[in-house]
């Protein structure tokens, strides 16, 4: 009940579009802007006074919303909050004129103000973003409304607006991550599918711990996941509808194991690996017709298929050359082109949602790396390195990568980490216990 209600409410949440205050001067002379390039070294200082509580009993929720916005922005590594103790000016009213000089004096380049009202369980959150050194707002003020339970999503949506206005990049904070929650000793690890907000909040479990589950993947529509389960005793692909929670096995296929599934961008096709007599190749299955097509036919291991965002190509890994390397082939199968060319082994290619890069796992000299390269294999850059990093997944805007990092030894455990595509802002994503195999959702509706 509650679950369905939430989805409906969020559907209706859609930015109410209420434009507050006067129209922005179109002439913003030197607009506040951050380019996400290797050049950004110093995070942009910003001030975000605790949002005002207007009406109702909104003080607590206003504080919580402010904290989530600050945490989203700081988590990118691009922004640094100026502590409230440094403020000269206080914001007494949402519509009062801004004392730009006071914010300039503490070197706040951006100022975020907001107000929250809470009436009968419905909250309304207004915010404005100011470019302090231009003495002007950056974009329009906006109001978002929702149920009390939606406060985190509203905070993420506001942070997304701020991030997008300043960087020019697409939003990504209002998104979820499905992953494998791990517990128990290394030789008897229990694995359950779980889902959470991108920042680790609002965790819920999607399966119990009765059988091993691996590598969940989101559909681009955000309503379904694919994963591999040992429920029958053999690895088999399952599809779960996130709204109903119901799971079903993909049609019984000839072959011993099926694994490594991924949806096509339109959600109608699943590319996956099928093993038969010890040999693993890539197949594609149409969900509407049930038709299965074999895409590779070699005695080597072909796995980890990932569609390009336009659906026309598939990146995958193969050890046909003797070691794991990344290849690209037409989505219908056919001649594959090897794209990885550096030293070591390359695996788990994942096409960026922007289409410009492929993220991958690299193994070389006893260490693992997460890296990105252009889709033709050029401009390879390694972003992380550790005893065991693997399995990258892209943020909806193609600017951040989440992956699994596992520590060595008998007590080694897996954790989720996040890094941006320039290799900065590397941090652990908070989860209650050990976690692996993250898959990022598309931006929520």
């Amino acid at each position, binding site marked *: *009940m*509650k*679950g*369905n209600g939430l989805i409906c409410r969020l559907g209706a949440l859609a930015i109410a579009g209420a434009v507050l205050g006067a129209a922005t001067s179109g002439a913003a002379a030197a607009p506040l802007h951050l380019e996400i390039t290797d050049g950004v070294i110093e995070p942009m200082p910003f001030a975000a006074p605790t949002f005002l509580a207007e009406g109702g009993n909104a003080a607590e929720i206003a504080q919580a919303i402010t904290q989530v916005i600050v945490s989203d922005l700081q988590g990118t590594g691009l922004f640094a909050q100026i502590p409230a103790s440094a403020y000269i000016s206080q914001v007494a009213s949402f519509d009062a004129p801004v004392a730009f000089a006071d914010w300039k004096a503490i070197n706040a380049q951006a100022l975020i103000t907001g107000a929250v009202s809470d009436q009968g369980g419905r909250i309304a959150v207004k915010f404005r973003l100011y470019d302090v050194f231009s003495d002007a707002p950056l974009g329009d003020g906006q109001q978002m409304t929702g149920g009390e339970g939606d406060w985190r999503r509203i905070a993420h949506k506001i942070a997304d607006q701020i991030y997008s206005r300043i960087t020019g990049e697409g939003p990504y904070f209002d998104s979820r991550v499905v992953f494998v929650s791990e517990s*128990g*000793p*290394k*030789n*008897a*690890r*229990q694995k*359950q599918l779980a889902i959470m907000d991108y920042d680790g909040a609002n965790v*819920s*479990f*999607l*399966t*119990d*711990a*009765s*059988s*091993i589950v*691996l*590598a969940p993947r989101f559909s681009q529509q955000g309503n379904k996941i694919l994963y*591999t389960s*040992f*429920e*029958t*005793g*053999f690895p088999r692909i399952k599809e779960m509808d996130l709204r109903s*929670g*119901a*799971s079903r096995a993909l049609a019984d296929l000839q072959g*011993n*194991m099926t*694994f*490594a599934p991924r949806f096509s961008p339109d959600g109608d096709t699943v590319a996956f690996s099928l*093993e038969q*007599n*010890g*040999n*693993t190749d890539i197949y594609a299955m149409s969900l509407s017709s049930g038709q299965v097509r074999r895409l590779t036919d070699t005695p080597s*291991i072909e*796995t*980890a298929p990932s569609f390009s965002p336009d659906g026309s190509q598939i990146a995958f890994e193969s*050890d046909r050359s003797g070691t*794991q390397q990344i290849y690209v082939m037409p989505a219908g199968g056919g001649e594959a082109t090897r794209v990885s060319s550096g030293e070591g082994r390359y*695996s*788990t290619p994942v096409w960026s949602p922007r289409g410009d890069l492929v993220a991958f796992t690299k*193994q070389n000299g*006893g260490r693992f790396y997460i890296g990105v390269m252009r889709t033709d294999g050029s401009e390879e850059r390694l972003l992380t390195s550790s*005893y*065991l990093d*693997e*399995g990258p997944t892209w943020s909806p805007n193609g600017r951040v990568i989440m992956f699994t990092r*596992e520590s*060595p*030894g*008998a007590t*080694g455990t897996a954790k989720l980490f996040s890094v941006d595509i320039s290799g900065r802002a590397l941090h652990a994503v908070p989860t209650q216990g050990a976690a692996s*195999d993250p898959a990022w959702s598309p931006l929520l509706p």
Partner: protein
Amino acid sequence: MQKISTIFLLVGALALAACNNPNRYGNGAGGAGGAGGAGGIGAGALGDPSNPNSPAYFQQTIGDTVHFVVDQSTLTPEAQATLTQQATWLNKHPTYTAIVEGHADEQGTREYNLALGARRASSVQQFLVAQGVSAARLKTVSYGKERPIALCSEESCFAQNRRAVTVLSAGAGS
């Protein structure tokens, strides 16, 4: 909250429906080791390892496990010697079936290791079949790097984890 518990119930029901599966490693159940658990033979029924007709003899005296070189699924001479004895035993005891489990060490990505474990299990299966064991009595499964038997992150452990284990089950082949 309501939604979550519904999901739990559903999954629970599916898991129950599949409870006679050959997965002796059902999440957390058992851990690594010899036969036992859902599809294998209970520890009590293994018998005496000095009795050549007992599953314990197959498991411990012949040895149910063979090991592999890094990234390889080729059978070493030692592995072939063990498997020749396994085949002889299986040929003498036609009421037993077996699942060959392939495993990989942790130095590889998850999906590749599943495929590599399958290659190893298949090598063992093919060898046993070549020695006269009916293919209908042998299934294979791969656990990739999900079920290590040795826990350190050094070659001494990796070498033990790159393995294929022939797990006996009682009952006629299907």
